[in-house]
């Protein structure tokens, strides 16, 4: 019989994804009440927004500023919202393992559980790292461009999920990831970098105890849906292919994501039903008083937008050894400042 382990499940989100993170954590509590739950919050509250967790929230908050990242303001300035939310994952993982958890499971905020993750727990008995690949089988037709080429650009594994055991190799992997993300967590596909995700292509070579989870019920999304069609059956089961659905990854379902799901759903309406269920859960957990598209790091202190050019300029400045104290307070855009220097 397995010894009882202390597991933490964490996610990383800004306020605009808080409704999804809350939905995620409600499903995590439903199926794994024995896991602790931590939100890594990569944001500051908008005026009028309460910072405390609201009633009904079932997780602890770990702020981006509590992760021990040096030169925080300038570092944050380099990253857009996706880049920063993913960049903190490594540091958060190390901190949680350092706090004494036996296992850490990361899940993206736009994921929802439909069953227990028993296979992950079994794998962690023997392996230090568990990853789910974007694809488990070669594609056909439109899928080659949509999915295979995409996996080559964005990473073999989808880092909407990661599980790490607090053992020597697991810790080495966590520290390696943290270090890389502090330096190179950017959307820079031509240079082989895609945020936090593409790094893990190296993992099987670096860390022999990496396990690739091949159960089709894990991390189902539009990019692999055609290989594991969702069915809802008379016996009440919800399957992905032939396996029970464990968790579904609802990427960008408010925009292009839904059409991608429909394109790959085949004739079945099951995906549409699950999508409706998910949208209703997210609506129930909406954050009140949140301005549309809000993110604290998207503007200077005086409200001017921080542009991509500004961010790229900051990366060049930091690479050259310059570390501005509080670039968000600059009255001149950083891109201009760099040009002048």
């Amino acid at each position: 019989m397995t010894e009882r382990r202390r597991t933490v499940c964490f996610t990383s989100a800004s306020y605009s994804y808080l409704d999804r993170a809350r939905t995620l954590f409600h499903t995590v509590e439903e199926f794994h009440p024995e896991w602790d739950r931590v939100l890594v919050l990569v944001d500051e509250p908008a005026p009028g927004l309460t910072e405390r967790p609201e009633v009904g929230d079932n997780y602890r908050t770990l702020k981006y500023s509590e992760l021990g990242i040096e030169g925080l303001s300038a570092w944050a300035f380099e990253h857009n919202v996706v880049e920063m939310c993913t960049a903190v994952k490594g540091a958060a993982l190390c901190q949680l393992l350092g706090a004494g958890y036996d296992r850490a499971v990361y899940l993206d905020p736009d994921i929802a559980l439909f069953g227990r993750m028993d296979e992950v727990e079994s794998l962690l008995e023997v392996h230090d790292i568990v990853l789910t690949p974007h694809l488990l089988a070669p594609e056909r037709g439109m899928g080659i461009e949509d999915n295979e080429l995409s996996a080559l650009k964005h990473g073999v594994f989808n880092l909407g999920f990661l599980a790490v055991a607090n053992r020597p190799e697991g810790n080495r992997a966590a520290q390696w990831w943290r270090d890389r993300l502090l330096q190179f967590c950017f959307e820079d596909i031509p240079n082989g970098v895609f945020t936090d995700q593409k790094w893990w292509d190296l993992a099987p070579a670096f860390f022999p105890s990496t396990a690739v989870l091949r159960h089709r019920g894990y991390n189902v999304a539009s990019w692999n849906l055609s290989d594991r069609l969702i069915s809802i059956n008379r016996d009440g089961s919800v399957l992905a292919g032939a396996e029970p659905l464990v968790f579904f990854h609802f990427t960008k379902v408010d925009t292009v994501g839904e059409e991608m799901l429909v394109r790959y759903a085949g004739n079945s309406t099951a995906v549409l039903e699950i999508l409706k269920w998910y949208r209703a859960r997210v609506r129930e957990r909406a954050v009140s008083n949140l301005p549309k598209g809000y993110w604290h790091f998207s503007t200077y202190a005086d409200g001017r937008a921080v542009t991509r050019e500004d961010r790229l300029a900051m990366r060049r400045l930091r690479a050259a050894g310059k570390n501005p104290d509080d670039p968000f307070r600059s009255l001149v855009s950083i891109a201009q400042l760099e040009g002048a220097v």
Partner: protein
Amino acid sequence: MSDVDIAGREFDAAYYGAMYGGSLPSGTDLLAHFCEQGWKEGKNPTDWFDTRYYLARYPDIVAAQMNPFVHFLLAGRIEGREPQRPLNPVRSVIEAARYPDWPAEVSQLGDRTAAQLLADGLASSPRRGRTIVSVSHDDYALSLGGIQNVVSDEAQEAVALDLNFLHLSPSHAGVIRLAPAEHTVVRVRLNGEAIGEVSSADLAAAIRGAGNTSRPLFVIHHLAGHSPESLASLIERVQAAATFYWAHDYFSACPSYALLRNDIEFCGGPPPSSAACRVCTYGPARPQHLERVTSFLDRVQAIVLHPSRSAARTWQKATRRALQSNKVAPLAKLLPSATVRRREGNDLPLRVAHLGARSYPKGWSQFEALAFRLRKDPRYEFLQFGYDGPEVRPSYIKSIPVAVSSGSRDAMTEALVEHQVDIAVLWSMCDETFGFTAYEAMAAGCGVVVRAGSGNVPYALAAEGWGALVLGSLDDLVVAFENGGAIADLAASDRNYGAVLSTAGSFGIVDFWQALHD
């Protein structure tokens, strides 16, 4: 070629006129209107092209400032662009599915005048026999449907047998869910006369004060809109001799009375704790709903009646209740006649019909898809017989309004005969408990194409020896019609006309007669 030339190839003037004609001067050239300004106003040229959707989905067309329909016909279609939201009909059904809220209540006292009227009506009723208390989900005298027809039949039998017929319908019509436990007000009709809204307490008092020594009999045809707890209390207070409960659908098992998960797929009623129930919009309400109905059935020791064996089996699986005292009682019989069906005039096109409203559970979405596919096929003409509701009517399906009411029970059969329908497509998306349309189609001598697994319908056809074409999916349906051989054979086979004879509901059941005379 001009826009008008290109768009004109597939422009549907009948559709455009029906949708937007009301706001246009008569005599307007609809095609020209669409090409000049209609598309800019977001108007659709046909029912399968969604102008607004196309422009929202393909910003390059917006930038080119060209007529989106023209673009689609010239290039978009070949490029694989979508003319409307993919899977739009089913997505609309799923998105609209929701467990209804109970309206805010003002009072539970009912109308005292109505209460008095009822008490006087019962006390002074000339009818010497006992009281039948009939319960259903709406006022049978004001609306149409299979259940309403059964209630009407029972009301008529009650008159013939000198019984008082007291009908209870919900005070909030049209809310398909159980009322809260504390809800006690119902709408009352006594011996055909509308009385008003009366509370449970006043109802009990009126029934007890009727001076009739025989205990009333309860016949429940549907619980939607009622509080089962209030009803059980009423049954106990008036010391009912027996309670008969008709399972005309599967409302006993779930608020989704046809067991359509998210209104879209027949689910059979899996365990309420299942993953399937979890993702269904009716899932959260189901455990309590199921518990309230089963408690009710136990409390009043209901004799449960099913219109077919198939319905009883499905009910048993969905409610997880044993069938010990349940009975099977068909709602009608087919009386074949000796008259052979003959089609007058030309054999083609074959007339293919959908029987019933243009609603998803009745298979309308699939019939529409079939008709759309074959709209230019000279072998077939497509018709819909039934309720002519507000849903858009496609130009390639002819609508024949038919209302089957208690006064004109044969309206459907007569219409099918009058229009010489060759093939009836019976494509219910759920388990039909009985399937009146199958009987009507047989009585009208139609060849039948039926969806496998649609509950009692395939069994009813087989029981009558009616050689129907049983198919599994929409793809199979389309292929069968495109190939045509099996369909032509079906249309050409010899069939007799007949008549549908209703069995007068509860009055057709031995146990009911026994209870009546106890």
